[in-house]
């Protein structure tokens, strides 16, 4: 029988991998993929806690985070495309318009 800690450690591992991606990727789309992994890890934690505590609220919140993530991806990628139109690049290091 797999206990709750195994699921939580799995979630923590996926979260760390996603964080690594966010920190190291240069491409803005690659950074978004890392954020996706991190949010996914949160969902694993939510569902695992909900299942082991017998509470439906965690499942409902998982639904909400999934929906919000989809909205976030749509807006984020629209921003990426808008940036690409203006700057002809999506390299995060070169997007320094706000640097003084």
């Amino acid at each position, binding site marked *: *029988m797999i206990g709750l800690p195994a699921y939580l450690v799995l979630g*923590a591992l996926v979260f760390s*991998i996603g*964080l690594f991606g966010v920190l190291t990727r240069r491409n803005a789309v*690659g950074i978004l993929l890392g954020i996706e992994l991190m949010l996914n890890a949160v969902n694993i934690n939510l*569902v695992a806690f909900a299942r082991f505590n017998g509470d439906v609220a965690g*499942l409902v919140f*998982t639904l909400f985070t999934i929906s919000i993530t989809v909205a976030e991806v*749509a807006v984020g990628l629209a921003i990426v495309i808008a940036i690409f139109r203006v700057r002809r690049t999506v390299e995060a290091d070169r997007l320094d318009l706000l640097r003084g």
Partner: protein
Amino acid sequence: MTLETVGFWVVATVLLASSLAVVLTPNLFHAVLYLAAALVATGVVFLLLEQPFLFAVQLLLYAGGVVTIVVFAIMLTERLVGERITQTSRHLVNGAVVSAAVFVGVVGFLVQAPLGAPRPAQTVDTTVAIGRALVGPFAVTLELLGALLVVALLGALYFARSEE
């Protein structure tokens, strides 16, 4: 070894391997495909936790919707073939150190937390329970979510509009 135990380790291996591939592969398009694999593996984790409805939502919204949108964005911002799609990473050591520190911190917290309780038997149909909760105690949140989706849609349209 029960079926659940075997399934968990198989799915965990697939999930971690594809997650690592997402952040390490130089080809951005491949990274999206690995992300799809990771999202499906997460859905199977939901299935292992006896949540078939969330598995379906995960497949439909994440593995279906998100991956499609990301592939579109890549095709719009990069040429699909050729070396422009390769992406480099920077600060690999720093990123690894910070990620490992976060992981150690979380696990250190988990070790102290009293989490040994065994898994209770699932008595109610969670799909029904989720539906009731959505129109019961979470009805306002559901409405706000609908508003958020409309705003996000309008925002995406605004950003992606043509220039005239």
